[in-house]
């Protein structure tokens, strides 16, 4: 099963053989091979086999098939892709080569036709709906990913790329949903809260024991989730076969309130020798080792995060006390595993915790059934992992001082203090890129740009009434009345009797700070650049003053800031070429970039100053331990400093992994998460519009 996949050159060789008659000096097999190379070995074999079949009919068909096959597999799954090819071969027989090739190229048409015929549902179509559904259900993010096997590590649920078990589309969707709910329930109702590998090791055939345990758990989870969510009982019952006598007996015990994994493990003893029933269609497999690993990492991470948050609550509580002598504030939590509700008390008084604390607590209750006593102790979870500590370096800064960099402090959360002059920052200009780039983006987004500009112009046109003007478009009744009263009492009346509408002076300056670190390479960088183009178009319509700078770096001794557009510059050819030249560089040291750009922004005279960062949310500098908590805390601190200096920091973060430290890191700023980089260009401008209207 785990044969390694073919490399691109191996594939190219094979394709050369199969497709030779369709290849020429202008058309090589290389591009096709590149498309197939990332597929799994099984999928690669599938493509090669069918390419051979197609090429025996006509070499051109083989070529078209293998060129489109990777996308067809994503869209239709294996059986669907097979049907797609067979339809084309059919067309070849009946109508000839040209219609057959057209049929292969028309992936969307096939998809529509097969959907209408009830051919099933692709994960890609329902992923977002199901992920939102799960987020609502769980209160923490669960990702969905297509895979050959169905299982969960408690943070990602792996499920089939396409489901076509049933003739009706709606039913196939229900199966997707049932898979999602079943695997959510494993994390929610504690399937992995016991050391399962140890349990299984007690059986002669651990695989068999695991399969039985999986079934018993499916019954337990159906009943536990059905207790809280009646809709789920119906969902599962509608998809699985009637229970065998032995399973029906097990259900009696697994359906009472609070039945846990321990009950399933207890029942496993008696069921193990019995014949294994068919698994239920939504069940997938259990992988206790992987789940335990991911769960363990999450627990450690959340414990640290909660500790940091609670420390702040403690400090705040202590500061509020009249008599600070009385020792540490006393924390207490009452929680319910049923509802995930909890009440936090500090010194016996209920407090409403910040949203981030509430989220962490609920997640921890899901993993433990409660907030463990020791999580509330003031002493905390002990030393931080050594790999998150920056190496101590001595006397490095002397030489760099000479080479024109600026020195910045950096926050060290373990010391609760700054490291003085720790970072050296260099500012330079982004090299100019392709002069045609911006024009191309503008052409591609022409329709949206017109709309954007219109919406932004509407903001700009927000009128202000100027009263008591010499002339204007309306009578100022207040002034008329006053004039009337004045005339009556013999005073010379004013002649300023009109109101005038004037464009209000927005007086906003905004600094865009763009992530140019290596982690943005590829798709994210492309989206960032497009976002910049749209932002410029919109801001030109709006008239707000703006600057754009990029940031990246390589260790604390070489933090880089790249000028793309200064406040003084206009959006002309030079700026456009620099936008085109925005490229991923090295690592991300975000704190120092925020500090530097805050400084530049504070030199601008404006009523409202906004620091708008655009990044992928990974403070990351491999070489001296900026990675991890250190970088997160420094970034957070830099945002606090920016805010204190009177700036409004705002972070847009593209995050396909939904890392859970984001709320803490960006907490001092306002922020939004965009989970799909493709939405970045249009969303960013929209976010800015809302931020300032």
């Amino acid at each position, binding site marked *: 099963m785990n044969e390694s996949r073919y490399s691109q050159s191996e594939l190219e060789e094979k394709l050369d053989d199969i497709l030779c008659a369709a290849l020429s000096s202008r058309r090589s097999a290389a591009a096709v091979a590149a498309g197939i190379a990332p597929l799994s070995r099984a999928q690669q074999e599938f493509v090669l086999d069918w390419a051979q079949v197609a090429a025996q009919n006509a070499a051109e068909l083989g070529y078209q098939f293998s060129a489109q096959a990777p996308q067809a597999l994503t869209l239709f799954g294996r059986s669907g892709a097979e049907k797609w090819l067979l339809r084309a071969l059919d067309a070849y027989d009946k109508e000839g080569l040209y219609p057959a090739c057209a049929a292969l190229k028309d992936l969307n048409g096939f998809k529509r036709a097969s959907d209408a015929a009830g051919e099933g549902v692709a994960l890609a179509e329902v992923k*977002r*709906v*199901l992920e*939102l*559904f799960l*987020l*609502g*259900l*769980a*209160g923490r993010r669960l990702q969905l990913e297509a895979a050959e096997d169905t299982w969960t590590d408690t943070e990602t649920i792996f499920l089939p790329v396409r489901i076509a078990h049933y003739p009706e589309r709606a039913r196939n969707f229900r199966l997707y*949903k049932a898979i999602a*709910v079943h695997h959510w329930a494993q994390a929610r109702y504690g399937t992995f809260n016991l050391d399962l590998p140890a349990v299984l090791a007690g059986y002669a055939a651990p695989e068999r024991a695991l399969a039985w345990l999986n079934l018993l758990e499916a019954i337990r989870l159906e009943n536990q989730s059905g207790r*809280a*969510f*009646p*809709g*789920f009982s119906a969902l599962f019952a509608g998809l699985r076969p009637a229970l065998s006598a032995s399973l029906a007996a097990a259900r009696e015990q697994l359906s009472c309130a609070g039945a846990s994994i321990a009950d399933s493990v207890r029942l496993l003893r008696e069921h193990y020798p019995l014949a294994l029933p068919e698994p239920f269609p939504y069940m997938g497999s259990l992988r206790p080792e992987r789940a335990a690993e991911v769960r363990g990492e999450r627990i450690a991470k959340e414990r640290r995060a909660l500790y940091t948050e609670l420390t702040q609550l403690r400090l705040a509580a202590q500061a509020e006390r009249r008599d600070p002598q009385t020792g540490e504030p006393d924390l207490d939590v009452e929680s319910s595993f049923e*509802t995930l*509700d909890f009440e936090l008390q500090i010194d016996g008084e*209920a407090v*409403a915790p910040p949203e981030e604390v509430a989220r962490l607590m609920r997640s921890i209750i899901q993993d433990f059934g409660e907030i463990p006593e020791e999580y509330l102790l003031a002493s905390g979870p002990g030393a931080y992992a050594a790999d998150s500590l920056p190496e101590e370096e001595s006397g490095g800064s002397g030489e760099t001082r000479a080479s024109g960099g600026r020195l910045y402090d950096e926050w060290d959360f373990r010391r609760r203090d700054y490291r003085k002059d720790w970072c050296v920052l260099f500012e330079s200009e982004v090299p100019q890129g392709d002069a045609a780039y911006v024009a191309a983006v503008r052409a591609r987004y022409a329709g949206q740009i017109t709309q954007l500009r219109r919406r932004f112009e509407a903001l700009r046109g927000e009128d202000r009434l100027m009263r008591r003007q010499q002339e204007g478009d309306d009578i100022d*009744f*207040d002034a*008329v*009345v*006053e004039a*009337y*009263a004045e005339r009556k009492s013999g005073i010379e009346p004013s002649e300023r009797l009109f109101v005038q509408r004037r464009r209000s002076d927005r007086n906003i300056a905004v600094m865009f700070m763009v992530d140019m670190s290596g982690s943005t390479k590829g798709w994210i960088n492309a989206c960032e650049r497009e976002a910049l183009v749209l932002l410029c178009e919109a801001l030109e319509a709006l008239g707000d003053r703006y600057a754009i700078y990029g940031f990246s770096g390589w260790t604390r001794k070489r933090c880089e800031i790249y000028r793309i557009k200064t406040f003084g510059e206009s959006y002309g050819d030079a700026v456009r070429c620099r936008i085109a030249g925005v490229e991923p560089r090295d690592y991300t040291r975000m704190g120092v970039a925020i500090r530097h750009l805050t400084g530049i922004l504070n030199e601008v005279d404006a009523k*409202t100053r*906004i620091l708008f960062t655009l990044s992928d949310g990974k403070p990351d500098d491999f070489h001296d331990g900026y990675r991890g908590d250190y970088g997160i805390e420094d970034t957070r601190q830099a945002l606090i400093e920016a805010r204190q200096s009177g700036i*409004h920091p*705002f972070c847009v973060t593209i995050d396909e992994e939904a890392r859970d430290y984001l709320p803490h890191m960006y907490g001092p700023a*306002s922020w*939004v*998460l965009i*989970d799909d980089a493709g939405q970045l260009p249009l969303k960013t401008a929209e*976010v800015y519009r*809302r*931020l*300032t*209207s």
Partner: protein
Amino acid sequence: MNDLHDTRRLNADVDRIETEPYYEPVGAEVALFEAAWASRVPVLLKGPTGCGKTRFVEHMAWRLARPLVTVSCHDDLTASDLVGRYLIVDSETVWVDGPLARAVRSGSLCYLDEIVEARKDTTVVIHPLADSRRILPMEKRGELLRAPDEFMLILSYNPGYQSVLKELKHSTRQRFVAIEFDYPRADLEARIVVAETGIDGSMAERLVKFAAMTRNLKGSGLDEGASTRLLVHAAQLMQRGVAPRDACAAAISLALSDDPEMLAAIDELASAVF
């Protein structure tokens, strides 16, 4: 013309509350409010939309037996809309008090709802009322109103706004005692829905559970989750025979989003509880 129209509207807003408005206390807010009133300190109510701020103020006005003047602030609301202005009546100029002035004269509670929506110059007139001076200068009229002890100023403010232009200035904020509101705890929220609509307890609990799930989506495509108000609306529809899932869609989901995928996800959440 506009002004005349406005004035008629503004005149209709002094409200004497005769019967007790139902309010379910969520924390110590009643005692806090009473203490602030007795100390003549103004109050700022912070919290998301539809969580009971307006209801709370009505309840407190009844409790303290004071009339209530409510002004819903909007972006055209100016200082003179609040304080008052001259009008021409039969070619005579007549001064008409604005709601704030009326509230001060009558020793009412004055509730300025969504103050950040109002024009900036309105904060200038509330500042002297909101500190120890407790005065309302009426420049146009050359009069200085001194607030009686019973008068109290109450602002509401929804910090959920993303606009930096709509943040409350510190100089305003720091004059007020802040009471923070959030959606009530699950059991209380269910009790409120029952009390407001007469729906049965288990249905109310399901609605509350559904609301909690939508609140998990805040920041991931929703600006706000379902408020208590929306739950009350859905329960009202259900009481009139609308099927639960339809009621949730009409009263809650569609009020939260236009995004078809988001709506589909919310509908799936509803199907989990109903």
